[in-house]
């Protein structure tokens, strides 16, 4: 089977700072992949390069065997902060992708309304962002990325700003939505349990310079419910990943406080 995304020899330097070194990742069609690692491991930079928001210093990224340059409507980006336009309604916000591409017809409107329904915002299409809770705003953020019907969904710690309970709900919601379409997903998070719960595979990054330390297959059955988090198999995965990055995380914490 052909690879959906193929990243080879990816390097990134910010001036004198080596941020990413020799990243090789191959992603299958419909695979849900998470990237975890201590702060400063370059996981967000990695995602931004794939999105085309940041140029790579060297290396190639192939999407369906075609090289990527710059942002495009074949990738949908879900931002950590929701980045909604405050003067637009929920629907108008979700439609921004098709609008930029110059095609907002009846078809796109219907599709986007369906997507809002899918993310649990049916009936809220005429609300303004300031009238919504943090969780609801992230749902719009997700619907907006899906509205362009991207080949790959890129998610940058989308639940980091939510409280713990809302985050757990959003994780199950994300899986429910993902089961409907089985998009290829690259999901960056600093929460190991979130990564294990959502993913088919977890990429563990190390820091200084940021590099791929290990790729761990998560062989837990789908569909997954929150109860899975209390099973020994789940905990074993989390422990294993935590042990891998513990040393790096401690180093990062000490540096941040120094």
């Amino acid at each position: 089977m052909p690879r959906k995304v193929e990243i080879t020899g990816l390097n990134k330097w910010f001036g004198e700072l080596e941020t990413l070194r020799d990243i090789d990742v191959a992603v299958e069609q419909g695979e849900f992949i998470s990237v975890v690692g201590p702060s400063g491991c370059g996981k967000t930079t990695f995602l931004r390069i794939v999105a085309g928001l940041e140029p790579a210093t060297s290396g190639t990224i192939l999407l369906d065997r075609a090289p990527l340059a710059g942002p495009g409507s074949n990738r949908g980006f879900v931002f950590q902060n929701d980045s909604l336009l405050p003067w637009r309604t929920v629907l108008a916000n979700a439609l921004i992708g098709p609008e930029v591409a110059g095609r907002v017809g009846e078809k796109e409107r219907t599709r986007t309304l369906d997507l809002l329904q899918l993310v649990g915002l049916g009936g809220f299409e005429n609300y303004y962002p300031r009238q919504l809770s943090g969780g609801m705003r992230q749902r719009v953020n997700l619907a907006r990325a899906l509205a362009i019907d991207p080949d790959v969904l890129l998610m940058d710690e989308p639940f980091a700003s939510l409280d713990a309970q809302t985050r757990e709900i959003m994780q199950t919601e994300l899986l429910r939505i993902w089961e409907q379409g089985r998009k290829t997903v690259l999901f960056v998070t600093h929460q190991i349990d979130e990564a294990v719960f959502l993913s088919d595979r977890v990429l563990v990054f190390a820091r200084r310079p940021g590099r791929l330390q290990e790729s761990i297959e998560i062989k837990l059955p789908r569909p997954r419910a929150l109860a899975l988090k209390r099973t020994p198999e789940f905990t074993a995965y989390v422990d294993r990943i935590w042990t891998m990055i513990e040393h790096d995380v401690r180093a990062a914490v000490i540096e941040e406080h120094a």
Partner: protein
Amino acid sequence: MLDRLRQNHLAGVLSVLGGLLFWELVSRLLVANALFLAAPSQIVDAIYQLTLTGELGRHIYISSIEFVIGYVIAAVIGIALGFGMASNARFKQAMQPWISGFYATPTIALAPLFILWLGIGIWSKVLVVIFLVLFPVTINTEAGLRTTSERLIEMLKSFGASRSQIFFKVSLPSALPFILAGLKLGIGRGLIGVVVAELFGSRAGLGRLISQSADAFNMPELFAGVIVLAVAGIAMTAGFGWLEKRLVPWTKD
């Protein structure tokens, strides 16, 4: 609704009524000299008389023309300058000292000069208004465009948006509250400009009414001019508040 209105405004209304009563009593009983102070009742009467003769209408008309022409020109040029400065760093560097300098200078002091150049007709007043309104509008427009959230710009970039799409879909709407704030600031400054320039020399206008009343020690008519100006300022500022609520509701609450 009515109850809330009553609760929110009761203290304000009582305070204004009390103030007017106090003013009336002081001017009638304490000062008791129409050369120094006019009572509210006398002012109301003066406004009524001036309206009947059509004199007040004529002054208001002239001042309004001067204000509106100057204000519109200043708004158009100010917004355009702000756009130019936000989109071109060189242009901004070149303009910045002038804009900041003129904004900080009490340019109203140039009014006699403008009258010398343009005569005592409306155009010297128009120029004063332009000078007073232009710079706050320019400064606010530029600031509004400059402070557009990087996050929102990046969001639009992720969808492959062009520069002009970013400008029209993000920069412009997020600058709108700033532009309106600059225009609002311009109302008060513009009104001051009209009146003060008219004081320096004019044939008609509210400033003219005030200065000729002062020369004749006609306090009721002098206050009539001041009251009309106050009402105009309050009404226009309130109108702007209403406009802001309609145009940029996301900045409220």
